């Protein structure tokens, strides 16, 4: 994956090259390999040891091509070519032209934190239908097409497995 930190006009290429188990990884940044050990992680941040040095990162707002994080109290913006949100979106049935699918299915397992719509509500493609909590992270499940909510298949506090229908959208 390619990254750029605008303020320092420098490009980086980074990836995980090896999984050592026990939450330890080898990552490669440009030409240098680093050992990384995860201490704690959730959707809001990560604590890790990189080459024996402890770091704490908080993840702030993310968009498809920008990541904002605070690392060891230093705010840093990264421009990325990574399209995670799109990946999730694609897997929920969005993206392509396949609008025929009735059910919006959750591509991730999780606990239903909140439901943003009610039966009969009309939604547009990309509107948030519900929020799931997974791995301590809250993730919005978005409508895969325009339509109206026909039937909600989940309830607050319940859990959904991967592939479970969230709601029918007609």
């Amino acid at each position: 994956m390619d990254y750029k930190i605008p303020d320092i006009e420098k490009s980086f290429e980074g990836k995980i090259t090896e999984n050592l188990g026990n939450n330890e990884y080898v990552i490669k940044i440009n030409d240098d390999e680093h050992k990384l050990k995860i201490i704690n992680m959730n959707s809001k941040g990560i604590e890790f040891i990189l080459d024996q040095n402890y770091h704490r990162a908080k993840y702030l707002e993310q968009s498809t091509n920008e990541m904002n994080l605070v690392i060891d109290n230093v705010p840093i913006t990264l421009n990325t070519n990574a399209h995670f949100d799109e990946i999730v979106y694609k897997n929920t049935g969005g993206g392509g032209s396949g609008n025929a699918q009735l059910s919006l299915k959750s591509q991730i397992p999780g606990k239903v934190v909140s439901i943003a719509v009610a039966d009969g509500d009309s939604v547009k493609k990309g509107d948030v239908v519900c929020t799931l909590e997974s791995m301590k992270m809250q993730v919005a499940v978005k409508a895969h097409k325009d339509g109206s909510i026909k039937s909600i298949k989940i309830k607050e506090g319940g859990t959904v497995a991967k592939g479970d229908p969230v709601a029918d959208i007609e």
Partner: protein
Amino acid sequence: MIEKVLIANRGEIALRVIRTCKVLGIKTVAVYSDEDRNSLHVKQATEAYHIGEAAPAKSYLNQEKIMEVMLSSGTDAVHPGYGFLSENDDFARLCEKNKINFIGPSADSMDLCGDKMKCKDAMLKADVPTVPGSPGLVKDADDAEKIANKIGYPVMLKSVYGGGGRGIRIVTNDKELHEGYESVTGESIAAVGKSAILVEKFLEKTRHIEYQMARDTHGNTVHIFERECSIQRRNQKLIEQTPSPAVDDETRARIGEIVCRAADAVDYTNLGTAEFLRADNGEFYFIEINARLQVEHPITELVSGLDLVKLQLDIANGEPIPFKQSDLKMNGYAIECRINAEDTFLDFAPSTGPVPDVTIPAGPSVRCDTYLFPGCSVSPFYDSLMAKLCTWGQTFEESRTRMLSALNDFYIQGVETSIPLYKTILNSDEYKNGELSTDFLKRHDMIERLTKDLKKEKEEKSDAALAAAIIYSEYFKSRIQTRVGNNSNWKNKLG
């Protein structure tokens, strides 16, 4: 004896006063505006009363409402903090009328301190040096020229109706003086319809040095050493320290005596601060008395061992100051950084909003007075001071390095802060060497240096930032393949 104090203030200073009262077993009454319902001073006081809307005029400046709370809650004294009603002699008078012990000087003394002309007069009589200049308004340009020649160029022509740099002209000879007189008069008339001009000696590369003083109702006066507050932006202090690198023992005692004379001259009671300009040649000139507890009082507490709020309460109780000048010994070095919610790169414009997360530095010889807590917010209605970070050291170097370490530990999410600027300043050779002046920031290109420091810091953190970003991406990828969704399980899957 004071048994219940209303604190007519908010933020860190309200908390500061509450803390001493708690230790002394004195009950406290907090007042709060709509905006401050969730603020710490409401939570830490013995009682709390809502007094109005967010705008200061509707709450913290609402004398009648505050008096109503005092009378109905059985409060016997009021601590005004700084700002708001702290130097309002009408309020002090209202308290006197209602037999509420106002913790500060009498209304008359406050009035005298607040009126610059009358105060200067009193100081001249008491042989307190003030900035040389016309004793009052000048009659005309010729009168101004006469005075300028007496005190020596460069001089400043100042319209009393100006302010904030407007209606001020610095002139270096008779010709410039006459030209300047015309334009200052014109500016002033254009702006406010009238003109009244003062002449004052223009001092270059000045330091702002002030003295903490205390005077009791029995007429005992002491000074509690100086504070140097030269590092400023737009005439507002950013970093203070004590002792001043420009004050030796002899100077401390000599100016200290002048400070006591100044306090006597205005029949001051309670704690106050005498502010001076120190010219580059070492001369001190009195500017004004701040008739209240000062923002930067903690550094004086750190080197004197005194609890200044307790001293205020003692004096308000009519007790004599419990020590003599000769009992006071200056112990070590202290620095204060005012942690403001402001954007250094936007000309220090205020930055407000919610603060979801905050880490407050602590540790040996670190003191942080703040209203911040995770989940609080910085209100646009009040001033930008979020925290006062102070460190003490046996040597100046120790206090400085402790401050740097504490600044590194300080994390405030959601608003821009002055913390990065302070790191640049404290790391500069000029600061280390005590080469301070009120134009320090500009004189030493601190903003440009800050830009470089920030870039360097980012470079240093780039590998770690990238590592965090990579893991974040992998996290999202793996989520899609993983069935059971808790954190450790995820890590096992990824592992």
